[in-house]
């Protein structure tokens, strides 16, 4: 006991302090763990997979030609022969409704990808570089934001006498991107004051790298959630525009067109209204459910704070 004195005040302290060594739990494995237990996610995933299959390979679901419409069979009520009946031209309605998923899916994907592309590039530059870049991008966004998306789309599509799914998607995205732009911009602004951004700057990383490697990966979660809502919204918008007569036109196949026709024969041919609305609601609902499940798993707040 007597002569033992520590030679250093560090003696006996191991260099290993209480380091937790639990299995790697990254943001995304954590998100997956939460979503796996979420019924909403599974419902959404099942529906979206089904609609995606309908869009990619509709022949899996039917054997009839959607364009083969013997006029003698017109307006038949649902039967074993025609599950959803036939429309006023004699086409098999089940085949037509299934085929409609492709249009909606296409529009949804076009709108989401264009919106994300514009919002990410403009929003992150505006947020990160601030100053003039921000001023210009934000004013453009403000101008488009002040035009209601549907109204703007109606105007443009009327001028161009409608268009295909691609054109409609581009028009919806053109008027709709400012929402996501604002979200990305505010996410980037709050992200760039983080310690690791300052640290990366002191290590000499260029702005581009910092934005791409540090700011965006940390701020991408709310954008993904928002993208799910954007797809749902776009599907609804296309159906609405087409229903109003400024979107797709015959011989295209779209739930909006089917609803427009059904509207003229309501209520005597009510089944014509039921099936496309049901599919439309299910698809929009699926993407909203996916968004909500993702939102809760990522624990993001979607209100931009500016």
């Amino acid at each position, binding site marked *: 006991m007597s002569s033992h004195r520590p030679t250093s005040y560090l003696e006996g302290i191991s260099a290993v302090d209480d380091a937790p060594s639990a299995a790697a*739990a990254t943001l995304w494995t954590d998100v997956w763990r939460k979503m796996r237990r979420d019924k909403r996610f599974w419902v959404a995933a099942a529906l979206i997979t089904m609609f995606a299959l309908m869009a990619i390979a509709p022949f899996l679901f039917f054997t009839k030609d959607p364009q083969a419409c013997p006029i003698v069979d017109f307006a038949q009520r649902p039967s074993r022969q025609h599950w959803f009946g036939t429309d006023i031209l004699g086409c098999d309605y089940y085949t037509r409704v299934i085929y409609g998923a492709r249009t909606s899916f296409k529009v949804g994907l076009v709108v989401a990808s264009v919106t994300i592309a514009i919002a990410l590039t403009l929003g992150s530059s505006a947020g990160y570089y601030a100053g003039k870049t921000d001023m210009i991008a934000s004013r453009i966004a403000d101008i488009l934001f002040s035009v209601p998306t549907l109204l703007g789309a109606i105007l443009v599509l009327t001028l161009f006498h409608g268009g295909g799914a691609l054109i409609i998607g581009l028009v919806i995205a053109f008027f709709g991107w400012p929402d996501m732009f604002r979200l990305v911009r505010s996410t980037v602004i709050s992200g760039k004051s983080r310690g690791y951004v300052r640290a990366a700057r002191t*290590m*000499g990383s260029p702005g581009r790298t910092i934005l791409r*490697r540090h700011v965006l990966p940390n701020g991408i979660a709310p954008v993904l959630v928002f993208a799910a809502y954007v797809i749902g919204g776009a599907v609804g918008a296309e159906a609405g525009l087409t229903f109003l007569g400024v979107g797709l036109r015959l011989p295209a196949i779209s739930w909006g067109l089917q609803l427009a026709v059904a509207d003229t024969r309501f209520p005597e041919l009510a089944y014509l209204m039921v099936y496309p609305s049901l599919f439309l609601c299910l698809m929009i609902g699926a993407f909203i459910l996916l968004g909500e499940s993702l939102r809760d798993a990522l624990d993001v707040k979607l209100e931009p704070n500016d």
Partner: protein
Amino acid sequence: MTDQVLAIDDLQVEFRTEEGVVKAVDGVGYALGKGEVLAVLGESGSGKTVHARAIMRILDSPPAFITNGTVRLGDIELLTLDEDDMREVRGSRVAMLFQDPHTALDPVFTVGDQLMELLRERRKMSRGQAREESLALLQRVGIPDARDRLDAFPHQLSGGIAQRVMVAMAVALEPEVLLADEPTSSLDVTVQAQVLELLGSLVAETEMSMVLITHNLAVAVGLAQRIAVMYAGRIVELGPARDVYTTPKHPYTAGLLRSIPDIQVREERLPGIAGSPPNLLKLPTGCAFSPRCPLADDRCRTEVPAFFAVGPDRWSACFHPDEVQR
């Protein structure tokens, strides 16, 4: 001094805020020798962190602007360098260490990713080389099981290990100067000592110089050869660590020393420094410390004291350096 690595002269930084202009750094100057550790000691708001960020030129402008001064690193002047050249200097010639390692590491990438990013971008290493080098760096800063740590995410590391990772990143490009901004303030006391010991040994092995920014006098005396004491944006005392500790020549330094509890003396109440740190928006006329200073006279309240030589390699911004009592 033999080899001068970093020389700062009359550095001034102001923050232009809505309430007015604040001089956060007001004429700071010192020279740092090769392999030297200089502690910059001061309380919150004294400008010690701002001066380091000014050297790195990573202040956010607005609101912060460097309005005057020179910062010479070897043969280059940092304050007039264009942004691209300055970026080359950061990390490879001057690096910085931050207070809280967990906020300075990016939560979505592994430790290895972050080290490798740096090495690949700045050293143009291949993936394999960068991984080997990262591993070597982690081992060098004394991280046990370094290979496993490469694939760990920051939140899986304790504060001490995370700060060691930050040290590894800071020395990865072998900078001449390391600006350590309160590197141990967020850590447990036992871990603090380990990180300080690591920093000390790195300086000893590599001839790297270090500016150790701290509010902890014991840390400063333990690691630094010289101490610069900052108050209200100025250096008020500068000298060899031991001399400043034993015979302070500025009443503010003396006040700091008196407020350290002495285990030998039973005291009811620890003496502090009267008053509170100055509001930089309304600095008193004359010496900024005068309202709190027991030695202040009329001259102190009207005239700003220059930085006087008060001994061999000792400087004090006080009109009464010899009346200061420890």
